[in-house]
């Protein structure tokens, strides 16, 4: 039964059918892809929901997370953000844009020698706090920085 399902999934892989099947809750994507998409966290409409979704419900403020982002972003469509954690045992980092419709932007897990550091570009709908959350030894830590946006990046 399981084998049949796998074959079916592979066959559908290149079409939109797979996404439709996942959306309908018929199939779980975990078996097909190496990384599982954390739908709950990424589709959360507020920061609290996103934090909870990644297992970091109430992160403690930490000065050991280095978050760099511009003070003012002229174009909210591309805001360069760099996060790095100096907390020993950091296994994952997440980046949130608090006032975006869905705050969680990205979540990274560091394995096999990867240093807890990441650079990415995010979209910002408006001036907001950017929050970087680090997970280390089962605990959550956070740092934040406000970025002023003069032109939003999520609208038309």
């Amino acid at each position: 039964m399981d084998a049949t399902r796998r074959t079916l999934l592979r066959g559908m892989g290149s079409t939109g059918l797979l996404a439709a099947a996942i959306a309908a809750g018929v199939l779980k994507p975990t078996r097909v892809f190496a990384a599982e998409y954390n739908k709950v966290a990424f589709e959360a409409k507020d920061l609290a929901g996103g934090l909870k979704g990644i297992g970091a419900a109430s992160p403690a403020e930490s000065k050991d997370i280095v978050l760099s982002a511009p003070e003012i972003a002229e174009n909210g469509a591309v805001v360069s953000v760099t996060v790095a954690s100096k907390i020993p045992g950091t296994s994952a980092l997440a980046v949130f844009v608090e006032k975006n419709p869905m705050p969680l932007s990205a979540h990274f897990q560091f394995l096999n020698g990867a240093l807890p550091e990441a650079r990415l570009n995010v979209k910002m709908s408006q001036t907001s706090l950017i929050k970087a959350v680090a997970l280390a030894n089962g605990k959550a830590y956070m740092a934040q920085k406000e970025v002023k946006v003069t032109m939003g990046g999520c609208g038309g």
Partner: protein
Amino acid sequence: MADPMKIRATASGDVCEIKVLMSHPMETGQRKESDGKIVPAHFIQTFTIAVNGKTVIDAGTGTSVSRNPVFGFKVKGPKAGDKVTVSWVDNLGDKRTDEATVA
């Protein structure tokens, strides 16, 4: 099928810097065309980076990652000649894998 990624991996001393540029529209599903129709969401949901077959980065991305995403990471250990493989999957089930060699 999406365009190839650009992957640059440079080892200096003990640490290898990996930069990836993915070619993807990253549509949020909230943007409207001039005729008022919503552009359907189309964005990368997960990607992994492996060095010589061993996963080093396992990532999830939401709609708020910029169009044509650029990511930068640092990994301890890789040497010149090692193989870096990056794979992504988007919300429509489209996927792409590209390789590069550590310089």
